[in-house]
């Protein structure tokens, strides 16, 4: 086996999907597109096109990088099941990467906390706050209603992520002139970032056993307390 790792990255966390091919942590080709709800139809052709663009055949892939959420329920599972099928079929390792980690990674070395925001449908947001002194895996990831989040914004933080463009004016209104908001409309996640995170994880032996791979599913605090009250039999 060559000592190079050639990775295929898949991120179907949200309506924007990303596929990339990289060698030793450096991107060769990537494709990102707005898939909306069509991931199950569009993902595999996108993988084929990206492999062709990278002049890499599927047999050359030595590792798979997969984004595990939080994100849209069905879309996320399309990418994850595809990644797991390929890893199983080719008997290659799989590396899981949190979707909010991909969002914050480019901004972690700026000496400040970073908060990433992704839409979770209607008025809900997936939020990840990453402390500047902490490692990437120690971020606090949670689900919050948009108004509640805006009322109680993390202080002294950089804001980034797929949803910042649409929340920009509200964030500026609340943060005042000292705001630090990444100015990037979606798609905000790049396969080159996954390549870098994934390559570092592979080198440190941080692969995940196929049986242990699960999407990150977040409950709202409201649902968490509803779950504790189950079962609630119907009464008139």
């Amino acid at each position, binding site marked *: 086996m060559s000592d190079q790792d050639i990775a295929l990255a898949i991120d179907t966390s949200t309506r924007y999907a990303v596929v990339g091919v990289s060698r030793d942590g450096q991107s060769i080709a990537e494709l990102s597109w707005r898939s909306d709800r069509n991931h199950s139809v569009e993902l595999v052709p996108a993988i084929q096109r990206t492999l062709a663009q990278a002049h890499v055949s599927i047999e050359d892939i030595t590792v798979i990088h997969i984004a595990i959420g939080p994100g849209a329920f069905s879309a996320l599972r399309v990418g994850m099941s595809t990644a797991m099928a390929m890893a199983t079929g080719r008997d290659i390792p799989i590396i899981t990467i949190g979707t909010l980690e991909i969002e914050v990674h480019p901004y972690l070395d700026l000496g400040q906390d970073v908060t990433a925001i992704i839409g979770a449908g209607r008025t809900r947001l997936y939020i990840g706050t990453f402390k500047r002194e902490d490692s990437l895996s120690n971020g606090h990831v949670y689900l919050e209603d948009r108004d509640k989040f805006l009322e109680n914004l993390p202080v002294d933080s950089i804001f980034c992520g797929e949803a910042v463009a649409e929340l920009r004016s509200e964030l500026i209104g609340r943060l005042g002139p000292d705001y630090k908001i990444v100015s990037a409309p979606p798609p905000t996640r790049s396969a080159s970032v996954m390549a870098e995170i994934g390559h570092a994880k592979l080198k440190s032996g941080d692969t995940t056993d196929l049986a242990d791979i699960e999407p990150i599913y977040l409950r709202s605090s409201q649902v968490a307390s509803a*779950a504790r009250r*189950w*079962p*609630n039999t119907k009464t008139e």
Partner: protein
Amino acid sequence: MERSIRSYSPKDTHKIGRRIGTKAQSGDVLLLVGDLGAGKTTLTQGILWGLGGTEYARSPTFVLVNEYPARLTLYHMDLYRLNSIEEIEDLGLDDYLYGNDLCVVEWADKAPGYFPVNHAVVQLEVIDDQTRRVTVSSETAHLDRLVMAIAGGADE
């Protein structure tokens, strides 16, 4: 806001459903409460036609979720056979409940607190063989239009 109206036949219930369907907007969630045979599926059928759909809604008890094309896609769900919040979460209903279409959920009272705070409840109470009391309520002003929709008398 809350309003009640009497339905004297399945035809009336269907008509009430049509009025609700006409007023439904993107992202609305309707929770249906009522015993077996109270008319939940008939009401849903009416909602679908009010949305401009042309199919016949069937009970989703065994398939858990039915999907019907219309002005807004109607997702008709039934939690009757589910036993835990985890089972509901594993179905991925969040994509629908927090999406941009219309969700109508039967037996939602099995999972209080699971649904978006912005929902309307439609209760169907059996008064006698034919008669039902239909009550629509909501705690959010945004959905008052659905509560208002049933006004006007079932025999209108």
